[in-house]
């Protein structure tokens, strides 16, 4: 599809699926095919990533009027490598949600079936790719926000190792987990975009530094490629609630692997996986409550000037009441975990359990973790599981699910959260075309290239 015809279709696609929060109206004049790596590729950016050319709203009333004076590093890198950014994509407010419903814009509709939720929080990014209006999209993944909507819309959704892609310009939800991810219809595009973005950024204090990047390259060369590849299935991921259709697809995928001589499949055990939801919902909302404290309406964003903003010595009640209900829930939960008793009893405990979980992953993988330097005990190359527990809920049911019991919505992230907590590279792949049955493959920290290679070999 030419860029021009793609742009001409934007209004219709937007009407059908509510993909964008804003999008371009005309083709850029400087659109010439050249030898830059992403020349001619069209991309969409999740609207919690700062851009100079579009507003950055985070799908929140709080930032409805916000225009960033700078581009995020990832946006700079994409532009430099020749990609065309066609718009900013709809999301669950500040990245908080699993269904794509917690947005001040209309809910995103699933191109596989427009009555379905597409999942969240990178909802519009998944829809932009699934509707083929965009070659790729950037999302952010804190607990599964790239992988889950990719599974629901039957596309590829890759969350790299924490720290490999810069977060400068990514509006923080929970920094110790936030990772920029890539969504596309094929693994080669994922690879290409990753190569563009996989760079050290001195502006991001958590960006993986050059020495460690060099160490990774060295370690990769040491891996013996003639060995059989060992694939682990954690028994803690065996869930009775797993939808039968998804189970079928997952079993088919295992069968396809076993047909090759190259692969062996093993059961593995990572007991900490059982703690992952508790750890996540202790740490992530606490970080979120802290990060969202800056939205007081004084320097940017929404401020109610008609009503007083200091009531009984409490600041900004009026301006901050503009957050949506799910964000408010998490701010309350987060502050509860941060208040002095909660911090010692819950937060510190959760941090310890998180370290314990990382140690368990380190024992299982063959590749050594360059950050922890833990010695491996077993020699598993990849871990596989379904990405999603259920088929996408219907949009009109989705909102009742999340309102009646937010925990139900949180359950959607059960397979994806452990990898987020451990910072591991993981990808959701559409093993069966056009079916919302994601398969998640993950590997040791820093082993991103091998993961993408493996996916390419098995599809």
């Amino acid at each position, binding site marked *: 599809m030419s860029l021009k015809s793609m742009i001409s279709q934007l209004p219709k696609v937007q009407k059908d699926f509510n993909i964008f929060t804003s999008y371009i109206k005309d083709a850029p004049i400087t659109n010439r095919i050249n030898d830059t790596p992403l020349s001619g590729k069209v991309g969409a950016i999740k609207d919690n990533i700062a851009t100079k050319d579009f507003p950055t709203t985070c799908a929140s009333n709080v930032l409805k009027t916000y225009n960033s*004076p700078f581009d995020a590093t990832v946006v700079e890198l994409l532009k430099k490598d020749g990609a065309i950014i066609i718009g900013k994509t709809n999301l669950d407010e500040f990245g908080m949600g699993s269904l794509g419903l917690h947005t001040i814009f209309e809910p995103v509709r699933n191109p596989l079936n427009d009555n379905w939720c597409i999942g969240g929080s990178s909802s519009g990014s998944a829809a932009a790719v699934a509707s083929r209006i965009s070659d790729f999209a950037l999302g952010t993944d804190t607990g599964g926000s790239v992988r889950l909507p990719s599974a629901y819309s039957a596309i590829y959704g890759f969350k790299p190792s924490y720290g490999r892609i810069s977060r400068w310009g990514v509006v923080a939800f929970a920094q*110790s987990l936030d990772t920029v991810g890539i969504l596309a219809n094929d693994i080669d595009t994922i690879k290409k975009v990753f190569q563009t973005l996989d760079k050290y950024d001195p502006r991001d204090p958590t960006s993986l530094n050059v020495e460690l990047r060099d160490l990774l390259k060295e370690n990769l060369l040491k891996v013996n490629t003639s060995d059989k590849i060992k694939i682990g299935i954690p028994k803690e991921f065996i869930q009775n609630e797993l939808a039968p259709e998804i189970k079928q697809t997952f079993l088919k995928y295992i069968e396809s692997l076993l047909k090759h001589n190259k692969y062996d499949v093993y059961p593995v055990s990572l007991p900490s996986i059982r703690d992952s939801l508790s750890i996540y919902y202790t740490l992530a909302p606490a970080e979120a*409550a802290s990060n969202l404290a800056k939205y007081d309406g004084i320097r940017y964003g929404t401020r109610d000037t008609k009503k007083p903003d200091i009531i009984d010595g409490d600041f900004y009640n009026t301006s901050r009441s503009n957050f949506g209900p799910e964000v408010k829930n998490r701010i309350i939960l987060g502050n509860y975990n941060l*208040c002095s008793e909660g911090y010692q009893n819950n937060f510190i405990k959760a941090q310890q359990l998180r370290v314990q979980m990382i140690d368990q992953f380190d024992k299982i993988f063959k590749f050594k973790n360059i950050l922890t330097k833990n010695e491996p005990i077993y020699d598993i190359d990849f871990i596989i599981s379904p990405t999603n527990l259920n088929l996408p809920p219907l949009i009109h049911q989705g909102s009742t699910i999340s309102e009646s019991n937010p925990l139900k919505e949180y359950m959607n992230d059960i397979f994806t959260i452990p990898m987020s907590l451990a910072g591991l590279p993981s990808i959701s792949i559409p093993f069966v075309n056009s079916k919302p049955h994601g398969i998640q493959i993950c590997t040791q920290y820093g082993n991103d290239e091998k993961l993408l290679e493996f996916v390419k070999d098995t599809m």
Partner: protein
Amino acid sequence: MLRAKTQLISHSLKGKWYSTVAKSAEYKLTCGLEIHTQLNTVNKLFSASTNNPFESISHPNLNTSYFDIALPGTQPILNYEAVLFALKLALSMKSNVNLNSQFDRKHYFYGDQPQGYQITQHYHPFSTGGYLTLSKEFDSIKDTEKKINIIQLQIEQDTARSLHVHQSPLNKTSGEDILIDFNRSNVPLIELVTEPDFHDTLQIKAFIKKYQNLVRQLKISTGDLEAGSIRIDVNVSVNEHPRVELKNLPNTSSIIAAIDYEYQRQMQVLKDGRIEEDAHVETRAWDGTKTTVLRSKESAMDYRYMADPELPLITLDNDVLEEVAKTLSKSADEYIKDLMSEPYHLSMKDAKILTIQNEFNDLYNNEELRQYYVDTFKSYTKDSTASSKIVISWILHELLGNLKKLDIPLKLLSDNLLPPNKLANLLTLIHTKVISNANAKQLLFHILDEFKTSRCVKLEEIDFMTLVKKYDLQTTNNIDYASLEEGCNKILSEIKKPTMIEDIKSGKKKNSIKYLVGLGMRKYQGKIEAQEIETMFKKILHIK
């Protein structure tokens, strides 16, 4: 408020910095200090903006990066210069540096707090323990020696500055507006907390002075209280009265006055037996005349401290500590002791001038001055066995006086015109009576004045002997006493007020003889030593 201000000014004008309130032996004062010190690093703590909080008056919000105003998507990058400065301070006070300290977020909402939290160090501070020792000898306290123990040092961000204006460009109608200037936002601070070791205000005054000098000597802060580079909160408790935290203390005089007031107030509370109902920790503000409650513990905020999830630990190696320790010079007390003993034998007053930097000065710092003195001293005493008092008196009075008058930096003078050995030459010429003291002063001023006129560029090397000859300034070696007597008599005869001479003779106005000597010096163009002229006048007037 205006009245309070006037009182404050008159208070400090009278020079009554120390407590004027009598302390009762029955009621024991206990104080601890919380000191915030702005570090004068080139850049801010977590951004590349220029660190210049004082630019605010003329250019509000000039030194602000995206991070300083907490734009969405921005991140902190630690400025290691601030870590180096903190390390110097910690090591100077023998504080135990934490090899893995951590940044935490302290949450509270306020207009001058753009992130909604301050990045500070709560759970694992930069260093713990340490002390500063005060002494009767150097710090004029009552005890011979008093150790003030430090609880901890932590690195943290400063807030923005709020300006309360009654009519701003934005609000022309009425009411108060609060303008916020983010130049100060994210400026590096060190918070130092002492143990409650102070028991009188002399100790507090001495500690503040000593601490100010320390940060100036280390060149890590301008150390000014009035400008807000150092801000001090005081915890005060009399006997069993619950601790009260005093805030809004802009200078030493208000600190002392507020403690005095609080001492009286708490003593009265104790005497009245009101302690039961009053028993909670309070924060009170000093308004210039009294302290008033800001908040009590019951309504105290929970700051919800959280380890910052993206800033790495400050990891230090023992080698780094050792290397930085090597760069630290002696303590001020040690310098003063050295200067007061062999071979310099300076008075404590002069030794302190060479050691303690009272304010940042464009022309010289105490280190340069001390070095200049020591070098001049060495050069002078090499050739002369005479009394060396002339060295300190010429440097402190003649040289510094002229530098200030002509606005010449000491370093420039030393490098381009008058290195220490040259000044020593001039002093030797005075000592050997080649040139009189008076003429030497004039000569010094003359060459400095020329130096200034020629924009302080490096000139030909000075040779004082040549100059003395050129300007014909040599003292007369073979004095013709008969002609000197004649000359002095002529001066006396020209005095129009005979009573003056009578007063000198009777001893009523003894010092007026200096006036006569001055006339003599002028007559002989300083070539005859003042002492000779004075002796002659005394001889003529029969004064012993």
